[in-house]
Protein backbone atom coordinates (compact mmCIF):
# COMPACT_ATOMS: atom_id res chain seq x y z
CA UNK A 1 0.00 0.00 0.00
CA UNK A 2 0.93 3.64 0.02
CA UNK A 3 3.17 3.57 3.07
CA UNK A 4 5.67 1.31 1.33
CA UNK A 5 5.74 3.45 -1.81
CA UNK A 6 9.30 3.94 -3.06
CA UNK A 7 10.54 7.34 -1.94
CA UNK A 8 13.15 9.50 -3.57
CA UNK A 9 15.80 8.86 -0.91
CA UNK A 10 15.52 5.13 -1.47
CA UNK A 11 15.76 5.50 -5.24
CA UNK A 12 18.80 7.76 -4.93
CA UNK A 13 20.51 5.21 -2.67
CA UNK A 14 19.84 2.41 -5.12
CA UNK A 15 21.11 4.55 -8.01
CA UNK A 16 24.25 5.48 -6.05
CA UNK A 17 25.03 1.84 -5.25
CA UNK A 18 24.42 0.83 -8.88
CA UNK A 19 26.67 3.62 -10.10
CA UNK A 20 29.49 2.70 -7.68
CA UNK A 21 29.30 -0.96 -8.67
CA UNK A 22 29.41 -0.08 -12.36
CA UNK A 23 32.31 2.33 -11.85
CA UNK A 24 34.29 -0.29 -9.90
CA UNK A 25 33.55 -3.07 -12.37
CA UNK A 26 36.49 -2.32 -14.73
CA UNK A 27 38.90 -2.51 -11.77
CA UNK A 28 37.51 -5.79 -10.49
CA UNK A 29 37.15 -7.30 -13.93
CA UNK A 30 39.29 -5.47 -16.48
CA UNK A 31 38.01 -6.41 -19.91
CA UNK A 32 37.65 -4.36 -23.04
CA UNK A 33 34.69 -6.44 -24.11
CA UNK A 34 32.94 -5.91 -20.80
CA UNK A 35 33.44 -2.14 -21.01
CA UNK A 36 32.05 -2.05 -24.52
CA UNK A 37 29.06 -4.10 -23.50
CA UNK A 38 28.28 -1.86 -20.52
CA UNK A 39 28.50 1.30 -22.62
CA UNK A 40 26.23 -0.11 -25.31
CA UNK A 41 23.76 -1.38 -22.73
CA UNK A 42 23.79 2.07 -21.08
CA UNK A 43 22.77 3.66 -24.37
CA UNK A 44 20.04 1.06 -24.98
CA UNK A 45 18.81 1.14 -21.37
CA UNK A 46 18.08 4.87 -21.72
CA UNK A 47 16.44 4.21 -25.06
CA UNK A 48 14.24 1.32 -23.89
CA UNK A 49 13.27 2.87 -20.54
CA UNK A 50 12.27 6.13 -22.21
CA UNK A 51 10.20 4.18 -24.74
CA UNK A 52 8.50 2.39 -21.87
CA UNK A 53 7.35 5.72 -20.45
CA UNK A 54 5.11 5.74 -23.52
CA UNK A 55 4.36 2.04 -23.99
CA UNK A 56 4.12 0.76 -20.43
CA UNK A 57 3.08 3.80 -18.43
CA UNK A 58 0.89 5.73 -20.89
CA UNK A 59 -0.27 2.99 -23.25
CA UNK A 60 1.12 4.80 -26.32
CA UNK A 61 2.83 2.19 -28.49
CA UNK A 62 5.28 4.24 -30.52
CA UNK A 63 6.84 2.37 -33.45
CA UNK A 64 9.09 5.33 -34.17
CA UNK A 65 11.08 5.84 -31.00
CA UNK A 66 14.28 4.95 -32.86
CA UNK A 67 13.94 8.32 -34.53
CA UNK A 68 15.03 9.96 -31.29
CA UNK A 69 17.92 7.56 -30.77
CA UNK A 70 19.23 8.34 -34.24
CA UNK A 71 18.43 12.02 -33.97
CA UNK A 72 20.38 12.25 -30.71
CA UNK A 73 23.40 10.58 -32.27
CA UNK A 74 23.39 12.88 -35.32
CA UNK A 75 22.53 16.05 -33.39
CA UNK A 76 25.39 15.44 -30.98
CA UNK A 77 27.85 14.34 -33.67
CA UNK A 78 27.04 17.26 -35.96
CA UNK A 79 27.23 19.78 -33.13
CA UNK A 80 30.72 18.56 -32.32
CA UNK A 81 31.89 18.30 -35.92
CA UNK A 82 30.30 21.39 -37.43
CA UNK A 83 29.90 23.86 -34.61
CA UNK A 84 33.08 23.13 -32.73
CA UNK A 85 31.31 23.56 -29.41
CA UNK A 86 32.26 21.99 -26.07
CA UNK A 87 30.73 18.66 -25.11
CA UNK A 88 28.37 20.12 -22.48
CA UNK A 89 27.09 22.61 -25.07
CA UNK A 90 26.60 19.80 -27.59
CA UNK A 91 24.65 17.84 -24.97
CA UNK A 92 22.46 20.88 -24.37
CA UNK A 93 21.89 21.29 -28.11
CA UNK A 94 20.97 17.60 -28.35
CA UNK A 95 18.46 17.89 -25.50
CA UNK A 96 16.82 21.06 -26.76
CA UNK A 97 16.64 19.99 -30.39
CA UNK A 98 15.25 16.54 -29.58
CA UNK A 99 12.66 18.16 -27.30
CA UNK A 100 11.61 20.33 -30.24
CA UNK A 101 11.44 17.29 -32.51
CA UNK A 102 9.32 15.53 -29.88
CA UNK A 103 7.05 18.55 -29.61
CA UNK A 104 6.40 18.71 -33.36
CA UNK A 105 6.09 14.97 -34.01
CA UNK A 106 4.10 14.51 -30.80
CA UNK A 107 1.67 17.35 -31.47
CA UNK A 108 0.75 15.72 -34.78
CA UNK A 109 0.87 12.03 -33.81
CA UNK A 110 -0.95 12.19 -30.47
CA UNK A 111 -4.15 13.28 -32.18
CA UNK A 112 -4.32 9.77 -33.62
CA UNK A 113 -5.34 6.80 -31.51
CA UNK A 114 -4.00 3.28 -31.02
CA UNK A 115 -2.55 1.66 -34.13
CA UNK A 116 -2.82 4.92 -36.09
CA UNK A 117 -0.57 6.57 -33.56
CA UNK A 118 1.89 3.69 -33.93
CA UNK A 119 1.89 4.01 -37.71
CA UNK A 120 2.35 7.74 -37.86
CA UNK A 121 5.32 7.61 -35.49
CA UNK A 122 6.81 4.97 -37.77
CA UNK A 123 6.14 7.19 -40.76
CA UNK A 124 7.93 10.10 -39.10
CA UNK A 125 10.88 7.88 -38.38
CA UNK A 126 11.06 6.79 -42.03
CA UNK A 127 10.92 10.41 -43.07
CA UNK A 128 13.88 11.19 -40.85
CA UNK A 129 15.72 8.11 -42.11
CA UNK A 130 15.22 9.14 -45.74
CA UNK A 131 16.39 12.64 -44.93
CA UNK A 132 19.56 11.28 -43.33
CA UNK A 133 20.24 9.06 -46.34
CA UNK A 134 19.49 11.80 -48.88
CA UNK A 135 21.19 14.78 -47.26
CA UNK A 136 24.68 13.55 -48.00
CA UNK A 137 26.58 16.84 -47.54
CA UNK A 138 25.33 17.13 -43.98
CA UNK A 139 24.96 13.55 -42.79
CA UNK A 140 27.28 11.58 -45.04
CA UNK A 141 24.28 9.66 -46.37
CA UNK A 142 24.46 5.89 -46.03
CA UNK A 143 28.12 6.14 -45.02
CA UNK A 144 27.13 7.88 -41.80
CA UNK A 145 28.97 10.67 -40.02
CA UNK A 146 32.56 9.87 -40.85
CA UNK A 147 35.86 11.25 -39.65
CA UNK A 148 35.19 10.75 -35.98
CA UNK A 149 33.53 13.01 -33.46
CA UNK A 150 35.95 15.42 -31.78
CA UNK A 151 36.07 14.88 -28.04
CA UNK A 152 37.75 17.90 -26.47
CA UNK A 153 38.30 17.55 -22.71
CA UNK A 154 35.92 19.41 -20.39
CA UNK A 155 35.95 19.75 -16.59
CA UNK A 156 38.85 17.35 -16.43
CA UNK A 157 36.96 14.70 -18.39
CA UNK A 158 38.61 13.44 -21.55
CA UNK A 159 36.27 11.22 -23.51
CA UNK A 160 38.99 10.08 -25.87
CA UNK A 161 40.25 7.99 -22.95
CA UNK A 162 38.38 4.71 -22.69
CA UNK A 163 37.96 4.73 -18.91
CA UNK A 164 36.55 8.26 -18.97
CA UNK A 165 34.16 7.31 -21.71
CA UNK A 166 33.00 4.35 -19.69
CA UNK A 167 32.46 6.39 -16.52
CA UNK A 168 30.66 9.09 -18.50
CA UNK A 169 28.28 6.61 -20.17
CA UNK A 170 27.28 4.79 -16.99
CA UNK A 171 26.83 8.08 -15.11
CA UNK A 172 24.52 9.48 -17.79
CA UNK A 173 22.59 6.22 -17.80
CA UNK A 174 22.16 6.00 -14.02
CA UNK A 175 21.24 9.67 -13.63
CA UNK A 176 18.91 9.44 -16.63
CA UNK A 177 17.12 6.41 -15.22
CA UNK A 178 16.89 8.09 -11.82
CA UNK A 179 15.16 11.10 -13.38
CA UNK A 180 12.80 8.86 -15.36
CA UNK A 181 12.07 6.95 -12.16
CA UNK A 182 11.18 10.20 -10.40
CA UNK A 183 8.88 11.09 -13.28
CA UNK A 184 6.96 7.80 -13.25
CA UNK A 185 6.54 8.00 -9.46
CA UNK A 186 5.40 11.64 -9.52
CA UNK A 187 1.80 12.89 -9.69
CA UNK A 188 2.39 13.19 -13.45
CA UNK A 189 3.43 9.52 -13.58
CA UNK A 190 0.07 8.60 -12.08
CA UNK A 191 -1.73 10.88 -14.50
CA UNK A 192 -0.13 8.82 -17.27
CA UNK A 193 -1.28 5.54 -15.66
CA UNK A 194 -4.82 6.88 -15.43
CA UNK A 195 -4.74 7.82 -19.11
CA UNK A 196 -3.44 4.34 -19.94
CA UNK A 197 -6.11 2.61 -17.87
CA UNK A 198 -9.09 4.68 -18.99
CA UNK A 199 -8.51 7.73 -21.16
CA UNK A 200 -12.19 8.64 -21.39
CA UNK A 201 -12.64 8.59 -17.62
CA UNK A 202 -9.50 10.68 -17.20
CA UNK A 203 -11.03 13.45 -19.32
CA UNK A 204 -14.11 13.40 -17.09
CA UNK A 205 -11.80 14.07 -14.15
CA UNK A 206 -10.57 17.20 -15.92
CA UNK A 207 -7.24 15.73 -16.98
CA UNK A 208 -5.86 17.39 -20.10
CA UNK A 209 -4.98 14.18 -21.93
CA UNK A 210 -3.36 15.84 -24.93
CA UNK A 211 -1.08 17.93 -22.79
CA UNK A 212 -0.05 15.00 -20.59
CA UNK A 213 0.63 12.73 -23.58
CA UNK A 214 2.62 15.42 -25.34
CA UNK A 215 4.69 16.02 -22.21
CA UNK A 216 5.39 12.29 -21.96
CA UNK A 217 6.30 12.14 -25.64
CA UNK A 218 8.77 15.00 -25.34
CA UNK A 219 10.37 13.58 -22.17
CA UNK A 220 10.69 10.14 -23.79
CA UNK A 221 12.19 11.74 -26.89
CA UNK A 222 14.80 13.63 -24.90
CA UNK A 223 15.95 10.55 -22.96
CA UNK A 224 15.86 8.42 -26.08
CA UNK A 225 18.13 10.93 -27.80
CA UNK A 226 20.51 10.86 -24.82
CA UNK A 227 20.81 7.12 -25.45
CA UNK A 228 21.75 7.88 -29.06
CA UNK A 229 24.25 10.44 -27.89
CA UNK A 230 25.98 7.91 -25.63
CA UNK A 231 26.10 5.55 -28.61
CA UNK A 232 27.59 8.25 -30.88
CA UNK A 233 30.28 8.93 -28.31
CA UNK A 234 31.04 5.23 -28.08
CA UNK A 235 31.39 4.57 -31.81
CA UNK A 236 32.66 8.10 -32.50
CA UNK A 237 30.17 8.53 -35.30
CA UNK A 238 26.51 8.24 -36.25
CA UNK A 239 25.07 5.77 -38.71
CA UNK A 240 21.78 5.52 -40.58
CA UNK A 241 20.87 2.27 -38.82
CA UNK A 242 20.53 4.29 -35.59
CA UNK A 243 17.56 6.07 -37.11
CA UNK A 244 16.18 3.10 -39.03
CA UNK A 245 12.88 1.50 -38.06
CA UNK A 246 14.69 -1.64 -36.89
CA UNK A 247 16.01 0.46 -34.00
CA UNK A 248 12.44 1.07 -32.86
CA UNK A 249 11.77 -2.64 -33.22
CA UNK A 250 14.71 -3.42 -30.98
CA UNK A 251 13.34 -1.00 -28.39
CA UNK A 252 10.03 -2.89 -28.39
CA UNK A 253 11.95 -6.21 -28.15
CA UNK A 254 13.88 -4.94 -25.13
CA UNK A 255 10.65 -3.99 -23.40
CA UNK A 256 9.12 -7.37 -24.23
CA UNK A 257 12.15 -9.31 -23.09
CA UNK A 258 12.68 -7.38 -19.89
CA UNK A 259 9.05 -6.70 -19.07
CA UNK A 260 7.01 -3.52 -19.02
CA UNK A 261 5.37 -3.75 -15.63
CA UNK A 262 8.50 -2.99 -13.62
CA UNK A 263 10.54 0.17 -13.97
CA UNK A 264 13.82 -1.67 -14.49
CA UNK A 265 12.36 -4.21 -16.95
CA UNK A 266 13.28 -2.42 -20.19
CA UNK A 267 16.85 -1.80 -18.97
CA UNK A 268 17.13 -5.50 -18.13
CA UNK A 269 15.77 -6.20 -21.62
CA UNK A 270 18.46 -3.96 -23.10
CA UNK A 271 21.09 -6.09 -21.35
CA UNK A 272 19.48 -9.37 -22.41
CA UNK A 273 19.12 -8.32 -26.04
CA UNK A 274 22.71 -7.05 -26.19
CA UNK A 275 24.02 -10.28 -24.70
CA UNK A 276 21.92 -12.34 -27.09
CA UNK A 277 23.15 -10.25 -30.00
CA UNK A 278 26.79 -10.73 -28.98
CA UNK A 279 26.54 -14.44 -28.35
CA UNK A 280 24.48 -15.13 -31.43
CA UNK A 281 26.56 -13.00 -33.77
CA UNK A 282 29.65 -14.86 -32.68
CA UNK A 283 28.01 -18.28 -32.87
CA UNK A 284 25.98 -18.23 -36.05
CA UNK A 285 25.38 -16.53 -39.35
CA UNK A 286 21.62 -16.91 -39.01
CA UNK A 287 21.44 -14.10 -36.55
CA UNK A 288 17.89 -12.96 -37.15
CA UNK A 289 16.49 -16.48 -37.16
CA UNK A 290 18.01 -17.33 -33.83
CA UNK A 291 17.00 -14.07 -32.20
CA UNK A 292 13.48 -14.46 -33.50
CA UNK A 293 13.30 -17.93 -31.99
CA UNK A 294 14.43 -16.66 -28.57
CA UNK A 295 11.87 -13.88 -28.62
CA UNK A 296 9.16 -16.35 -29.64
CA UNK A 297 10.18 -18.50 -26.72
CA UNK A 298 9.69 -15.56 -24.37
CA UNK A 299 6.40 -14.56 -25.91
CA UNK A 300 4.93 -18.06 -25.95
CA UNK A 301 6.72 -19.60 -22.98
CA UNK A 302 6.73 -16.93 -20.30
CA UNK A 303 4.07 -14.76 -21.90
CA UNK A 304 5.81 -11.82 -20.25
CA UNK A 305 9.18 -10.22 -19.74
CA UNK A 306 11.81 -11.55 -17.36
CA UNK A 307 11.25 -8.94 -14.66
CA UNK A 308 7.47 -9.35 -14.89
CA UNK A 309 8.04 -13.03 -14.35
CA UNK A 310 10.26 -12.45 -11.32
CA UNK A 311 7.92 -9.85 -9.84
CA UNK A 312 4.97 -12.21 -10.22
CA UNK A 313 6.94 -15.03 -8.65
CA UNK A 314 7.74 -12.89 -5.59
CA UNK A 315 4.16 -11.70 -5.33
CA UNK A 316 2.79 -15.24 -5.41
CA UNK A 317 5.31 -16.34 -2.81
CA UNK A 318 4.51 -13.44 -0.51
CA UNK A 319 0.80 -14.02 -0.85
CA UNK A 320 1.31 -17.72 -0.14
CA UNK A 321 3.33 -16.98 2.98
CA UNK A 322 0.85 -14.43 4.35
CA UNK A 323 -1.92 -16.92 3.75
CA UNK A 324 -0.14 -19.73 5.56
CA UNK A 325 0.77 -17.26 8.33
CA UNK A 326 -2.89 -16.57 9.04
Amino acid at each position, binding site marked *: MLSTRPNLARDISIAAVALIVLLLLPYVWPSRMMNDLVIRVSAFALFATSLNLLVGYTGMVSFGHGMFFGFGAYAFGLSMQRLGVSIPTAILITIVSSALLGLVVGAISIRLKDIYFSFITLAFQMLLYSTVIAWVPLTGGDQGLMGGIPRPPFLGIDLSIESHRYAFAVTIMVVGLLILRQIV*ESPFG*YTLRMIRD*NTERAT*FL*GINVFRAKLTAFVIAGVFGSLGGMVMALFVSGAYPEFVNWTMSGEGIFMIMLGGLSTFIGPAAGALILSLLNDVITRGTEHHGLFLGAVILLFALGLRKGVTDFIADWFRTRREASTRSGN
Partner: protein
Amino acid sequence: MLEVKGLFKSFGGVAAISDVNIDFPTGSLTAIIGPNGAGKSTFFNLISGGLIPDKGSVTFNGESLIGRSRAQIIDAGIGRAFQVARIFPTLTVEESLLGAVTAHRRRAQNITHRFPLPEMRDRTHEVAEMLGLVEKLGVTSANLSHGDQKLLDIALALVLDPKVLLLDEPTAGMGPDERWRMIERVHELWEREKLTLIFIEHDMDIVFKIAPKISVLCYGRLLAEGTPDEIRTNPAVIEAYLGTSHAEAAV
Protein backbone atom coordinates in the same frame (compact mmCIF):
# COMPACT_ATOMS: atom_id res chain seq x y z
CA MET B 1 -29.84 26.29 -10.34
CA LEU B 2 -29.20 24.08 -13.35
CA GLU B 3 -31.42 25.02 -16.26
CA VAL B 4 -31.85 23.06 -19.46
CA LYS B 5 -33.76 24.80 -22.24
CA GLY B 6 -34.82 23.62 -25.69
CA LEU B 7 -32.18 20.89 -25.80
CA PHE B 8 -31.78 18.87 -29.01
CA LYS B 9 -29.40 16.10 -29.99
CA SER B 10 -29.68 13.59 -32.79
CA PHE B 11 -27.45 10.81 -34.03
CA GLY B 12 -27.48 10.36 -37.79
CA GLY B 13 -30.93 11.87 -38.12
CA VAL B 14 -32.42 9.97 -35.18
CA ALA B 15 -33.40 12.30 -32.37
CA ALA B 16 -32.01 11.11 -29.03
CA ILE B 17 -33.06 14.27 -27.19
CA SER B 18 -35.58 16.68 -28.60
CA ASP B 19 -36.81 19.91 -27.11
CA VAL B 20 -36.14 19.01 -23.49
CA ASN B 21 -36.68 21.70 -20.85
CA ILE B 22 -35.97 20.91 -17.19
CA ASP B 23 -34.95 23.05 -14.21
CA PHE B 24 -33.03 21.53 -11.34
CA PRO B 25 -33.21 23.90 -8.36
CA THR B 26 -30.15 24.03 -6.11
CA GLY B 27 -30.27 21.26 -3.53
CA SER B 28 -33.01 19.30 -5.31
CA LEU B 29 -33.15 15.55 -5.77
CA THR B 30 -34.55 14.42 -9.10
CA ALA B 31 -34.99 11.00 -10.65
CA ILE B 32 -35.00 10.58 -14.39
CA ILE B 33 -36.89 7.59 -15.68
CA GLY B 34 -37.86 6.25 -19.06
CA PRO B 35 -37.63 3.17 -21.26
CA ASN B 36 -34.37 1.87 -22.74
CA GLY B 37 -33.03 4.16 -25.42
CA ALA B 38 -35.15 7.09 -24.20
CA GLY B 39 -32.13 9.37 -24.22
CA LYS B 40 -31.40 9.46 -20.48
CA SER B 41 -27.65 8.84 -20.72
CA THR B 42 -27.47 11.18 -23.70
CA PHE B 43 -29.10 13.85 -21.56
CA PHE B 44 -26.34 13.44 -18.95
CA ASN B 45 -23.68 13.53 -21.66
CA LEU B 46 -25.04 16.82 -22.94
CA ILE B 47 -24.87 18.40 -19.48
CA SER B 48 -21.42 17.06 -18.56
CA GLY B 49 -19.61 17.90 -21.79
CA GLY B 50 -19.58 14.31 -23.03
CA LEU B 51 -21.54 15.43 -26.09
CA ILE B 52 -22.24 18.79 -27.68
CA PRO B 53 -25.94 19.58 -28.20
CA ASP B 54 -27.26 20.43 -31.65
CA LYS B 55 -29.38 23.18 -30.17
CA GLY B 56 -30.49 24.54 -26.83
CA SER B 57 -28.89 25.81 -23.68
CA VAL B 58 -27.57 24.42 -20.42
CA THR B 59 -26.82 27.03 -17.79
CA PHE B 60 -25.62 26.61 -14.25
CA ASN B 61 -26.24 29.55 -11.91
CA GLY B 62 -26.70 31.72 -14.97
CA GLU B 63 -23.53 30.67 -16.78
CA SER B 64 -23.68 28.71 -19.98
CA LEU B 65 -21.99 25.29 -19.99
CA ILE B 66 -22.30 24.76 -23.72
CA GLY B 67 -19.02 24.73 -25.59
CA ARG B 68 -16.98 24.43 -22.42
CA SER B 69 -14.40 21.70 -22.01
CA ARG B 70 -15.02 18.79 -19.66
CA ALA B 71 -12.45 20.25 -17.29
CA GLN B 72 -14.25 23.61 -17.24
CA ILE B 73 -17.58 21.92 -16.60
CA ILE B 74 -16.07 20.05 -13.66
CA ASP B 75 -14.66 23.29 -12.34
CA ALA B 76 -18.10 24.85 -12.63
CA GLY B 77 -19.25 22.11 -10.23
CA ILE B 78 -20.84 19.41 -12.38
CA GLY B 79 -19.73 15.85 -11.57
CA ARG B 80 -20.91 12.56 -12.98
CA ALA B 81 -20.73 8.81 -12.64
CA PHE B 82 -21.46 6.30 -15.38
CA GLN B 83 -24.02 3.63 -16.18
CA VAL B 84 -21.20 1.09 -16.54
CA ALA B 85 -18.60 1.95 -13.91
CA ARG B 86 -15.61 3.65 -15.50
CA ILE B 87 -12.59 3.06 -13.34
CA PHE B 88 -8.82 2.62 -13.59
CA PRO B 89 -8.40 -1.17 -13.46
CA THR B 90 -4.70 -1.41 -12.54
CA LEU B 91 -4.75 1.33 -9.90
CA THR B 92 -5.86 0.78 -6.34
CA VAL B 93 -8.93 2.56 -5.03
CA GLU B 94 -6.72 4.95 -3.10
CA GLU B 95 -4.45 5.69 -6.06
CA SER B 96 -7.46 6.36 -8.28
CA LEU B 97 -9.04 8.79 -5.83
CA LEU B 98 -5.73 10.50 -5.08
CA GLY B 99 -5.09 10.83 -8.80
CA ALA B 100 -8.50 12.42 -9.30
CA VAL B 101 -7.98 14.93 -6.49
CA THR B 102 -4.51 15.69 -7.86
CA ALA B 103 -5.96 16.46 -11.28
CA HIS B 104 -8.73 18.57 -9.80
CA ARG B 105 -6.21 20.66 -7.87
CA ARG B 106 -4.16 21.21 -11.03
CA ARG B 107 -1.15 19.15 -10.06
CA ALA B 108 -1.59 16.46 -12.72
CA GLN B 109 1.55 17.64 -14.52
CA ASN B 110 3.75 17.84 -11.44
CA ILE B 111 6.99 15.86 -11.84
CA THR B 112 9.06 17.28 -9.02
CA HIS B 113 7.24 15.58 -6.14
CA ARG B 114 6.37 12.02 -5.30
CA PHE B 115 2.84 10.72 -5.68
CA PRO B 116 0.73 11.28 -3.70
CA LEU B 117 1.06 14.87 -2.60
CA PRO B 118 0.21 14.78 1.13
CA GLU B 119 -2.45 17.49 0.87
CA MET B 120 -4.53 15.24 -1.41
CA ARG B 121 -5.15 12.65 1.30
CA ASP B 122 -7.83 14.37 3.39
CA ARG B 123 -10.46 14.65 0.68
CA THR B 124 -9.66 11.14 -0.54
CA HIS B 125 -10.24 9.57 2.85
CA GLU B 126 -13.29 11.69 3.56
CA VAL B 127 -14.95 10.47 0.37
CA ALA B 128 -13.84 6.87 0.90
CA GLU B 129 -15.47 6.99 4.31
CA MET B 130 -18.71 8.46 2.99
CA LEU B 131 -19.02 5.69 0.44
CA GLY B 132 -17.83 2.87 2.68
CA LEU B 133 -14.68 2.24 0.66
CA VAL B 134 -12.15 2.68 3.48
CA GLU B 135 -11.53 -1.05 3.79
CA LYS B 136 -10.99 -1.26 0.04
CA LEU B 137 -8.48 1.56 -0.34
CA GLY B 138 -5.60 -0.82 -0.98
CA VAL B 139 -7.50 -3.06 -3.40
CA THR B 140 -6.70 -2.96 -7.11
CA SER B 141 -9.83 -1.59 -8.79
CA ALA B 142 -10.17 -4.47 -11.24
CA ASN B 143 -10.54 -6.85 -8.27
CA LEU B 144 -13.43 -4.94 -6.70
CA SER B 145 -16.92 -6.41 -6.69
CA HIS B 146 -19.37 -4.93 -9.17
CA GLY B 147 -21.04 -2.90 -6.45
CA ASP B 148 -17.76 -1.50 -5.17
CA GLN B 149 -16.77 -0.53 -8.70
CA LYS B 150 -19.99 1.48 -8.95
CA LEU B 151 -19.16 3.10 -5.60
CA LEU B 152 -15.65 3.91 -6.77
CA ASP B 153 -17.04 5.50 -9.92
CA ILE B 154 -19.25 7.74 -7.76
CA ALA B 155 -16.34 8.44 -5.40
CA LEU B 156 -14.24 9.57 -8.37
CA ALA B 157 -16.90 12.15 -9.18
CA LEU B 158 -17.28 13.15 -5.56
CA VAL B 159 -13.63 13.91 -4.83
CA LEU B 160 -13.90 16.71 -7.39
CA ASP B 161 -16.23 18.60 -4.99
CA PRO B 162 -19.24 18.81 -7.31
CA LYS B 163 -22.26 20.97 -6.57
CA VAL B 164 -24.35 18.98 -9.04
CA LEU B 165 -23.94 15.21 -9.17
CA LEU B 166 -25.29 13.17 -12.08
CA LEU B 167 -25.60 9.44 -11.35
CA ASP B 168 -26.42 7.22 -14.30
CA GLU B 169 -28.19 4.14 -12.88
CA PRO B 170 -26.22 3.83 -9.64
CA THR B 171 -27.99 0.52 -8.91
CA ALA B 172 -27.49 -1.04 -12.36
CA GLY B 173 -26.67 -4.73 -12.21
CA MET B 174 -27.31 -5.08 -8.47
CA GLY B 175 -29.48 -7.49 -6.54
CA PRO B 176 -32.50 -6.15 -4.58
CA ASP B 177 -30.72 -5.81 -1.20
CA GLU B 178 -27.64 -4.23 -2.68
CA ARG B 179 -29.81 -1.74 -4.59
CA TRP B 180 -31.38 -0.42 -1.43
CA ARG B 181 -28.04 -0.17 0.34
CA MET B 182 -26.68 1.78 -2.62
CA ILE B 183 -29.62 4.12 -2.84
CA GLU B 184 -29.54 4.78 0.90
CA ARG B 185 -25.92 5.81 0.54
CA VAL B 186 -26.78 8.08 -2.35
CA HIS B 187 -29.59 9.66 -0.38
CA GLU B 188 -27.30 10.18 2.60
CA LEU B 189 -24.73 11.76 0.31
CA TRP B 190 -27.30 14.16 -1.08
CA GLU B 191 -28.25 15.32 2.42
CA ARG B 192 -24.72 15.53 3.77
CA GLU B 193 -23.02 17.25 0.86
CA LYS B 194 -26.02 19.48 0.09
CA LEU B 195 -25.82 18.42 -3.54
CA THR B 196 -28.12 18.99 -6.41
CA LEU B 197 -28.54 15.34 -7.26
CA ILE B 198 -29.96 13.87 -10.45
CA PHE B 199 -30.12 10.13 -10.89
CA ILE B 200 -31.32 7.79 -13.58
CA GLU B 201 -33.10 4.71 -12.26
CA HIS B 202 -35.18 1.86 -13.62
CA ASP B 203 -36.43 0.46 -10.30
CA MET B 204 -39.76 2.21 -9.74
CA ASP B 205 -40.01 1.22 -6.08
CA ILE B 206 -36.76 3.06 -5.46
CA VAL B 207 -37.76 6.05 -7.55
CA PHE B 208 -41.14 6.52 -5.92
CA LYS B 209 -39.72 6.13 -2.44
CA ILE B 210 -36.63 8.34 -2.78
CA ALA B 211 -37.22 11.06 -5.34
CA PRO B 212 -39.37 14.10 -4.45
CA LYS B 213 -39.37 14.99 -8.14
CA ILE B 214 -39.40 12.77 -11.21
CA SER B 215 -38.81 13.57 -14.88
CA VAL B 216 -39.92 11.05 -17.49
CA LEU B 217 -38.13 10.83 -20.83
CA CYS B 218 -39.56 8.91 -23.74
CA TYR B 219 -38.20 8.82 -27.28
CA GLY B 220 -36.05 11.81 -26.46
CA ARG B 221 -38.93 13.95 -25.26
CA LEU B 222 -39.87 15.06 -21.79
CA LEU B 223 -43.10 13.14 -21.33
CA ALA B 224 -43.95 14.32 -17.82
CA GLU B 225 -42.58 15.93 -14.69
CA GLY B 226 -43.87 15.87 -11.16
CA THR B 227 -44.07 14.32 -7.73
CA PRO B 228 -44.26 10.54 -7.33
CA ASP B 229 -48.02 10.70 -6.96
CA GLU B 230 -48.43 12.81 -10.07
CA ILE B 231 -46.21 10.53 -12.12
CA ARG B 232 -47.79 7.35 -10.82
CA THR B 233 -51.22 8.45 -11.96
CA ASN B 234 -50.23 10.25 -15.16
CA PRO B 235 -52.01 8.42 -18.02
CA ALA B 236 -49.32 9.20 -20.59
CA VAL B 237 -46.63 7.79 -18.32
CA ILE B 238 -48.65 4.70 -17.53
CA GLU B 239 -49.23 4.10 -21.20
CA ALA B 240 -45.66 4.68 -22.31
CA TYR B 241 -43.65 3.26 -19.49
CA LEU B 242 -45.21 2.08 -16.25
CA GLY B 243 -47.92 -0.20 -17.46
CA THR B 244 -50.78 -0.63 -15.03
CA SER B 245 -49.25 -2.30 -11.99
CA HIS B 246 -47.85 0.83 -10.34
CA ALA B 247 -50.96 2.80 -11.11
CA GLU B 248 -53.08 0.13 -9.46
CA ALA B 249 -50.78 0.14 -6.48
CA ALA B 250 -51.50 3.82 -6.05
CA VAL B 251 -55.23 3.40 -6.03
